[in-house]
C-alpha cells in the first residue's frame, strides 16, 4: 500500500512519517480504551433505567454490540470507513483493507504511521466508536426486542449506516472537508455529533416506531429500578468521553486539552441546565435528571469540543441540558415508545451541538463574526445525517420485521424479557428456593435426582400463555 491510501478525520494532508510520536500514541491507546469502556458504562446507564425484569436484556444489547461490531470492524468496517477507494463519497471499498490488509504494517514489516501515530492504533480507536454508536440505539427498544434480531440489526446497521457515515464525515467523503459542502464552509464534527449521535438518535426513533410501544406504555409505571447504577453509568460515560472527545484531537497537545476542558465545562453546565428545568417544572431536582443532563452535555459538546472556547461551552451545555429535559416528554405526546429517551437526549442534543457550532465556533461562528456560512453548512450536514440514517434504518428494520420478527411474545414481555429470553434473573437477594435440575456438561446430562428428562424446550412456555396444558398434575 501507499500511505495516501487512507483518508482520515480532520487531516487533509496524510503524510508518511518516519518518526512515531510515542506521546500521541499513548494518548490514543488510552483514548481507545476509554471509549471502549463507554459501552459497558452505557449498559449500566441503560440497565439501571429499565425495570428489574429487563435489566439483563438491556445490558446484553450493549454487550452484544461489542461482540458483533468487534468482529466485523476488522473484517470490513475499517475498510468501508477509511479506504481511499471511495464509492461516490458515500462509503469506502470494503475489500481494499478487508481483514485489515495493508493497514498494520508495510511491505517492509514496519508499522504504518500517519502523523506519528501507528494506523493500527487508530483502528482500535475507531472500532470503539462504531460499537458505542450501535449500542446507543438499543435504549429505544427496551424490554421487547428479540435478541437474535437485535444482533443481526447491529451488524447490518453498522455496515449500512455507521461505516458510510464515518466515511462521509471523517473518511474524506461527502460531508467532509473534501466534500461538496466544504465550499460554503468546512463542516465541523469534531468527535461525532452527526456520525454518532444524530445517526443513533434517528435510528432509535425509527426503531421505536417500527417496533411499537410496550404493553402498558403511558399507563403502567416504568420507573428506573436502580438509580445508583444509572448514576454510575453516567459517571463512567463522562470518564470515557474524554477519550471520545479529547482523543479526537489525534494528538497529545493543547487541542486535546481544550477538548478536555470544554467537555467538562459543557457537561457540568448541562447537568445544571437539566436540574434547573426540573426544579422549576416539577418542583424537584432528580438524580436521573443529573445523570441525563450529564449525557446531554457530553453529546452536545461532542461535535464542538475542539472548536469552541470554554466560555462558549457553558451556554452550549446549559441549553443542551434544558432542551433535552424538555424533549424527553414528547414521546408521551406523540406516542412513540423511545423507552430510555435516545431521541430526547442523543438526537436533540446532537442536533443542538452540531448546529450551535454555527454560532459558537471560534473563528467561523456567527457570534465570532464568521457570518452565516458555518451555521448553514452545519444545518446541511445535520439534515443529511438525519435523512440518511432514517432511510437506511427503516429499510433494515422493516426487512428484519418481515423476516426474523422484532417483538418477543407479549406474555414474555409481561413476565420479563430476562427470564423469558435469557433464562436468568438480574438479582436474587434472598437466595430463594429452587432446585438444580441439570447441568450442561458437554453431553448435557441430567443430574442424579433431577426429575425427568432435562427440559430442553427452555422456559418461555412455562408461563400463563397456555391454559390447562401447563398444570402440574
Amino acid at each position, binding site marked *: 500500500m501507499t500511505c495516501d491510501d487512507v483518508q482520515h478525520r480532520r487531516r487533509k494532508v496524510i503524510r508518511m512519517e518516519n518518526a512515531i510520536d510515542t506521546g500521541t500514541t499513548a494518548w490514543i491507546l488510552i483514548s481507545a480504551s476509554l471509549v471502549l469502556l463507554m459501552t459497558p458504562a452505557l449498559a449500566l446507564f441503560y440497565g439501571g433505567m429499565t425495570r428489574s425484569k429487563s435489566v439483563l436484556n438491556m445490558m446484553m444489547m450493549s454487550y452484544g454490540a461489542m461482540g458483533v461490531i468487534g468482529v466485523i470492524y476488522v473484517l470490513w468496517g475499517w475498510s468501508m470507513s477509511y479506504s481511499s477507494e471511495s464509492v461516490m463519497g458515500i462509503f469506502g471499498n470494503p475489500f481494499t483493507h478487508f481483514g485489515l490488509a495493508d493497514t498494520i504494517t508495510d511491505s517492509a514489516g514496519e508499522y504504518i504511521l500517519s502523523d506519528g501515530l501507528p494506523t493500527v492504533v487508530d483502528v482500535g480507536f475507531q472500532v470503539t466508536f462504531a460499537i458505542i454508536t450501535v449500542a446507543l440505539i438499543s435504549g429505544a427498544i427496551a424490554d421487547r426486542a428479540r435478541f437474535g434480531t437485535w444482533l443481526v440489526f447491529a451488524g447490518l446497521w453498522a455496515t449500512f449506516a455507521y461505516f458510510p457515515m464515518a466515511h462521509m464525515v471523517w473518511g474524506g467523503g461527502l460531508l467532509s472537508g473534501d466534500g461538496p459542502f466544504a465550499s460554503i464552509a468546512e463542516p465541523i464534527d469534531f468527535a461525532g455529533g452527526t456520525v454518532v449521535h444524530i445517526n443513533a438518535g434517528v435510528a432509535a426513533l425509527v426503531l421505536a416506531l417500527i417496533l411499537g410501544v410496550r404493553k402498558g406504555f403511558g399507563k403502567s409505571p416504568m420507573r428506573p429500578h436502580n438509580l445508583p447504577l444509572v448514576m454510575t453509568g453516567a459517571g463512567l460515560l463522562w470518564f470515557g468521553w474524554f477519550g471520545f472527545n479529547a482523543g479526537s484531537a489525534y494528538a497529545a497537545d493543547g487541542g486535546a486539552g481544550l477538548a478536555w476542558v470544554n467537555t467538562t465545562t459543557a457537561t457540568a453546565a448541562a447537568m445544571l441546565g437539566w436540574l434547573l428545568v426540573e426544579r422549576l417544572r416539577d418542583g424537584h431536582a432528580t438524580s436521573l435528571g443529573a445523570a441525563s443532563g450529564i449525557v446531554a452535555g457530553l453529546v452536545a459538546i461532542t461535535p464542538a469540543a475542539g472548536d469552541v472556547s470554554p466560555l462558549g461551552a457553558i451556554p452550549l451545555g446549559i441549553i443542551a441540558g434544558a432542551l433535552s429535559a424538555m424533549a424527553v416528554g414528547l414521546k408521551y405526546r406523540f406516542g412513540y415508545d423511545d423507552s430510555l429517551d435516545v431521541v430526547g437526549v442523543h438526537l436533540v442534543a446532537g442536533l443542538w451541538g452540531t448546529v450551535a457550532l454555527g454560532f459558537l465556533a471560534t473563528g467561523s461562528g456567527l457570534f465570532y463574526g464568521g457570518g452565516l456560512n458555518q451555521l448553514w453548512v452545519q444545518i446541511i450536514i445535520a439534515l443529511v445525517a438525519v435523512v440518511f440514517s432514517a432511510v437506511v434504518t427503516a429499510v433494515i428494520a422493516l426487512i428484519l420485521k418481515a423476516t426474523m420478527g422484532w417483538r418477543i411474545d407479549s406474555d414474555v414481555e*409481561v*413476565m420479563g424479557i430476562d*427470564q423469558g429470553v435469557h*433464562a*436468568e*434473573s438480574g438479582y436474587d437477594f434472598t437466595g*430463594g*428456593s*429452587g*432446585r*438444580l*435440575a*441439570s*447441568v*450442561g*456438561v458437554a453431553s*448435557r446430562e441430567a443430574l442424579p435426582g433431577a426429575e425427568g428428562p*432435562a*427440559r430442553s424446550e*427452555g*422456559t418461555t412456555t*412455562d*408461563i*400463563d400463555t397456555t*391454559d*390447562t396444558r*401447563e*398444570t*402440574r*398434575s
Partner: protein
Amino acid sequence: MKLITAVIKPHQLDEVKEALEAYGISGMTETEASGYGRQRGHSEVYRGAEYTVDFVPKVRLEVLVEDLDARSVVDVIVKAASTGRIGDGKVWVLPVEDVARVRTGEHGVAAI
C-alpha cells in the same frame, strides 16, 4: 368482622385496588408473596446448569371488612383479579374477633 385474604397475580393489584375502592373499601394491606400451585414456575440456566424455580411471584392482600360485606368483597376481588388463566389465585375469609385502630385506640367495626 372478617379478614379477607387474597393471593393474586402482581399485575392485577391495581385493578383489584380500584375495584375495592369503587366498592367503598378504602383500606388494605399488601405483602409480596410467592405461590406454588398448578401454575408452573420457570427455569433458569447459569453456565449450563439449569435451575428450576417453583414459586411464582404473587401479591397477598388483606382486607378487613364488616360481616355483611364479606361475601360481596370476595366477589369483587375475584372479578377484578381474574384473567381466566391458571395461577389467578385464591381468596379466603377468616373470622375476626376484634380490630383496633392504633391512632385512636378505637375498637370494633369503627376501627376498620
